[in-house]
């Protein structure tokens, strides 16, 4: 057999293969949506971006994780004291932790929502998205999935740290603690989902209409806290016969009311509760806000494209 002509060039290396045709698999719409999710995650967390882009999200993440670590540390210190001290009344546990970091989480959602939508729109990148096998609905579904994953991670990862920390420090033992608190496994995610539905839907809605990330973030916080103030004023002053219904404007309060319902707690002093509404009404408001937001965001993007 003749010697292969390649053998005389064994030491040769290819420095540049140049532009080539592609004959491999193509992943279609699903692959495109997965790419949008991955890139959205990177954008929110500032990954593969300049250092200054990482500062704000990672500061908030550090606050959330740090507070969980501090609570576990307090539990550890109190458990090593010679006297028995019940820290559950002094420091927040699972349900209370939601209150503990709700403002930080609100800031994170107000930052993440605009980051996901605004630059694509203002920098013209939608032209690239929609010239690929990706429709408006695919794009929005992928962005919403990214937003949900980021925000739910923000709520849940510190809770998982808390849970594992408390379990490790439990006098009953790690496994006994986990076995005795299985209800936490659905209650915490359910409450986190309610918070996401309210914060997230509002953040997406505002981010769809405002063309500056900072202004959108400020707008989200202002709307949530401002409506609280409006509802409170109406309730305190009692100007009109329909004042009771204005308490439902306190959007920021509804997730807390529903969370208390999920954890079977005595209702905290929320504006809707003071007006005589039950948690079911708050849940309906949360669902209603999410539905209205989905419809308006979809309408906005159909018009844009």
């Amino acid at each position, binding site marked *: 057999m003749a010697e292969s002509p390649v053998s005389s060039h064994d030491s040769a290396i290819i420095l*540049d*293969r*140049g*532009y*080539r*045709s*592609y004959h*491999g*698999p*193509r*992943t*279609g*719409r699903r*692959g*495109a949506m*997965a*790419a*949008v999710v*991955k*890139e959205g995650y990177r*954008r929110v967390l500032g990954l*593969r*971006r*300049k250092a200054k*882009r990482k500062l704000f999200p990672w500061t908030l993440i550090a606050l959330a994780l740090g507070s969980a670590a501090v609570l576990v540390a307090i539990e550890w210190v109190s458990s090593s004291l010679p006297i028995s001290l019940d820290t559950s009344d002094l420091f927040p546990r699972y349900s209370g932790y939601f209150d503990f970091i709700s403002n930080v989480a609100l800031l994170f959602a107000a930052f993440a929502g605009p980051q996901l939508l605004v*630059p*694509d729109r203002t*920098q*013209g*990148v939608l*032209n*690239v*998205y*929609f*010239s*690929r*096998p*990706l*429709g408006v609905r695919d794009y929005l579904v992928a962005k919403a999935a990214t937003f949900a994953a980021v925000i739910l991670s923000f709520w849940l990862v510190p809770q998982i740290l808390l849970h594992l920390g408390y379990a490790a420090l439990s006098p009953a033992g790690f496994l006994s603690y986990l076995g005795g608190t299985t209800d936490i496994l659905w209650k915490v995610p359910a409450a986190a989902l309610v918070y996401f539905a309210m914060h997230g839907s509002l953040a997406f809605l505002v981010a769809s209409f405002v063309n500056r990330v900072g202004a959108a973030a400020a707008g989200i916080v202002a709307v949530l806290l401002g409506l609280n103030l409006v509802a409170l004023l109406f309730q305190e002053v009692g100007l009109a016969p329909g004042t009771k219904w204005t308490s439902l404007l306190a959007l920021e309060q509804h997730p807390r009311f529903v969370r208390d319902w999920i954890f079977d707690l005595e209702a905290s002093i929320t504006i809707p509760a003071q007006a005589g509404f039950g948690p079911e009404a708050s849940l309906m408001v949360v669902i209603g806000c999410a539905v209205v937001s989905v419809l308006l965001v979809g309408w906005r993007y159909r018009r844009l*494209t």
Partner: protein
Amino acid sequence: MIDGPTGQRHADSPIIETRDLHKHFGQVRALAGVDLKVPPGITGLVGANGAGKTTLIRLLLGLTAPTSGEVAVFGTPVSRDAAGLRARIGYMPEGRCLPLDQTAADFVAYAAELAGIPPAEARRRASETLFLVGLHEERFRYLGDFSTGMQQRVKLAQSIVHDPRLVLLDEPASGLDPAGRDQMLEVIDRFRGFGMNVLFSSHLLEDIEQTCDWVVMLDGGRLLRSAPLDPPGDGTAVSVEVFDDPLPLVAALTARGIEVTYAGRVVTAMSSSEDGFVEVRDALAASGSSVRAMGTDLRSLEDVFMAATKESNG
């Protein structure tokens, strides 16, 4: 032809085909009755602002639906499988389309993934494509730090990174200095070697002349001309501008078996004989046409465009 199956096309089958294509935006008529067949190769899409170039490109991508008529790419109606077609089409928008906080390599790889290329291959292809457009050294720099020319090249890279069969370039040389324009056109010219077909929209007619094989002219939403830029053949191309109606001359030339194109009052005859002037002279005598100017076909594309526009506007 417009209903033919994808992938089973003759080499000369049109890449783009439209039939009686209309697009209205409210009272505004963007395209009116465009019948078009664009062959493989590099095609220039010429027209003034508002001629309907971008609307045609958006219709080809399936981003907007025609008011009436049909549009097909690779023989497949766009309305049947717009997403599937877009996986094999590249698009370079005229305006901004770059996320300024990403590196060139990250963005071009992302653009490849959006077109369905798996992530590892997308990164490899992004590197190769940025090398092709002359940005290999700068690929890890942030797009916000790029000059206009470099950004145009990144836009071009994202449009071809997924190995499309058709690339739609909307004013690719806009905003570039003369040297940058030449480099951009040189890269586009290299696409032929990769088996890509290009539809290249521009209002700079010199760019079209320099790069394209075929030209499509639009004016006010109407098709003025869809023809080869350099008519093929071994013979001589002779242009005659007549004072009156060119049709008698066209008929006389056609009767002599000469291939003829005309725009306005300018008739171009593709003679296969050694001296095309003799045949044209005889045809002129037979038709009784009065000659205003005559010569070898050295008219610029601008002359053709202006003549066609004038003719179209009466």
